[in-house]
């Protein structure tokens, strides 16, 4: 009784894609064309530049193979930036995830003034990043730093020889990491909060009835259930951190002595300010492996969410 597949296929072919499908294609194409032109094309160009010889004034294009990569790999500044990028990303993400977890748990239940607290906590994320960073530049000013003033009052630092937060290599790196964490904590917190509130109330209640205390409930029930959402927060955090140059650019411009230079800022200084498009592009291309890894992990999260 059931028509043979071949017959059905023939019937389908005769009718072709339905009108709805054609409409879908028509409605989707403008966005697709735009994305291909302004994300796809530059992405391809980025790779082409990285294996070519292109400067701001140059007209032609000459394929130079891996020359640019060899050249940047040989440069101490690049190796420093690569290392710094990882230090910057990993340390700030560690700080962020620990702080965001604590804060999300604390904000989980409703209390008087929660709305105001949420607004204050969110400020660093929702305010333009460059403005937040310049605010920190003032807070960490070499002479008038309020941070140093407080520390001096507490006799933790020497009033007359205070730390140069943005002027000494190790401190500068720490400052950049701290400021970037400051900006990312709210973002991770709200994502984790979304995860926390999606855990059915019955589950921690059941655990409480079963006699589990706060910490046991937290580590054996809540955290494992939060795993997918923590993954999402970390993945976004890694992308936003590894590819960011705003905080570094505003606070230190990569200094002192290139000790806080990260890949994106180095690419900017080389490719945009230094006019060596090819070498800048080659530096940028080093961001790609991380992005690919994140994209794959993100797909797995999305895939699992779909199955569930």
């Amino acid at each position, binding site marked *: 009784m059931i028509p043979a597949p071949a017959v059905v296929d023939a019937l389908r072919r005769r009718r072709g894609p339905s009108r709805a499908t054609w409409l*879908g294609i028509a409605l989707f194409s403008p966005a697709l064309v735009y994305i291909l032109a302004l994300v796809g094309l530059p992405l391809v*160009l980025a790779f082409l530049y990285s294996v070519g010889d292109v400067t701001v004034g140059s007209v032609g294009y000459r394929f130079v193979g891996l020359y640019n990569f060899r050249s940047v790999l040989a440069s101490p500044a690049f190796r420093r930036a690569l290392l710094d990028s990882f230090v910057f990303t990993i340390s700030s993400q560690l700080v962020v995830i620990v702080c965001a977890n604590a804060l999300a748990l604390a904000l989980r239940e409703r209390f008087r003034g929660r709305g105001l607290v949420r*607004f*204050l906590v969110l400020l660093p994320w929702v305010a333009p990043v460059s*403005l937040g960073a310049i605010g920190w530049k003032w807070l960490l000013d070499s002479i008038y730093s309020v941070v140093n003033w407080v520390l001096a009052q507490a006799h933790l630092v020497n009033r007359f020889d205070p730390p140069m937060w943005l002027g000494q290599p190790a401190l500068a790196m720490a400052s950049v990491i701290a400021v970037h964490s400051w900006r990312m904590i709210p973002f991770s917190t709200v994502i984790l909060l979304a995860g926390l509130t999606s855990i059915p109330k019955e589950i921690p209640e059941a655990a409480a009835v079963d006699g589990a205390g706060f910490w046991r409930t937290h580590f054996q029930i809540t955290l494992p259930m939060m795993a997918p959402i923590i993954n999402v927060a970390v993945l976004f955090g890694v992308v936003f951190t590894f590819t960011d140059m705003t905080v570094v650019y505003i606070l230190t411009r990569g200094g002192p002595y290139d000790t806080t230079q990260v890949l994106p800022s180095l690419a900017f200084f080389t490719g*945009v300010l230094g006019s060596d498009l090819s070498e800048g592009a080659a530096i*940028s291309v080093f961001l790609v492996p991380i992005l690919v890894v994140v994209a794959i992990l993100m797909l797995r*999260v999305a895939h699992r969410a779909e199955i569930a």
Partner: protein
Amino acid sequence: MAGPGPRRSLATRLGRWAIVLGFAILLAFPFYWMAITSFKQTADLYDVEHDPFIFNAPPTLAHLRYLFEQTLFVRWFWNTTLAGAAVVAITLVLAVPAAWALARLTGRWGQQLGIGIFLTYLVPPTLLFIPMSRVISTLGLQDTLWAIIVTYPTFTVPFSIWLLMGFFKAIPRDLEDAALVDGLTRFGAFVKLVIPISLSGILTVVIFSFTLVTQEFVYALTFISSAEHQTIGVGVPIFLVRGDVYYWGSLMAACLIASIPIALVYNLFLDRFIAGFTVGAVK
């Protein structure tokens, strides 16, 4: 502690308050500091002997006056508004139909394409800014507001498509079917039914796209070189600084004025943005 739930021990509650207060102060402090700095007299600001937490001299509006009268701040404000409006318009025109197409019309591969689109949101400006600057100069847009109007939708469109797909999928299919039976074409149902029902989702996209224009830094810094074409996000931290001299009073005033309205609006739509970021890991 309001609401039902087991009563917590005193230690737990104290711990929670300590965490909440500690973070609230730490995270919001720079903005408080911007506010104080904005109203302090210059002499008061630059005296290491002064307690920085109090007004050692009477508050002043001098920094604000300087900001509005002597700098390009108002100009940047308008540039940002203009670019924001244009980016919002482009985003809506491209993302709303595309999201509906992916959510409804394209069947199984719609979901795959949707995820693909979402992944393009992960492609950062710092990977594209070098070739993009070439594209921009080929189009003859360098050092104009158009440079960012054309490029910002590269972030707003993918994220908005993703966000709107969620909204459109939440509309019961029956509603669109009913509109078809009642006499509309598919496209008519989209325009007359889906869009009016999704207004809150569309508003979310509007807010998201607009705030992104205020927040973006890298492209504006790369493509626009003259101060008068800048947006607030680059104009304030880069062009308010004369040489090596930071006018902290007016600088902080500018930061505060630009940050607070955006933060207020963003806060209202926060839950919806988050829904876009959770990639379906939260139902």
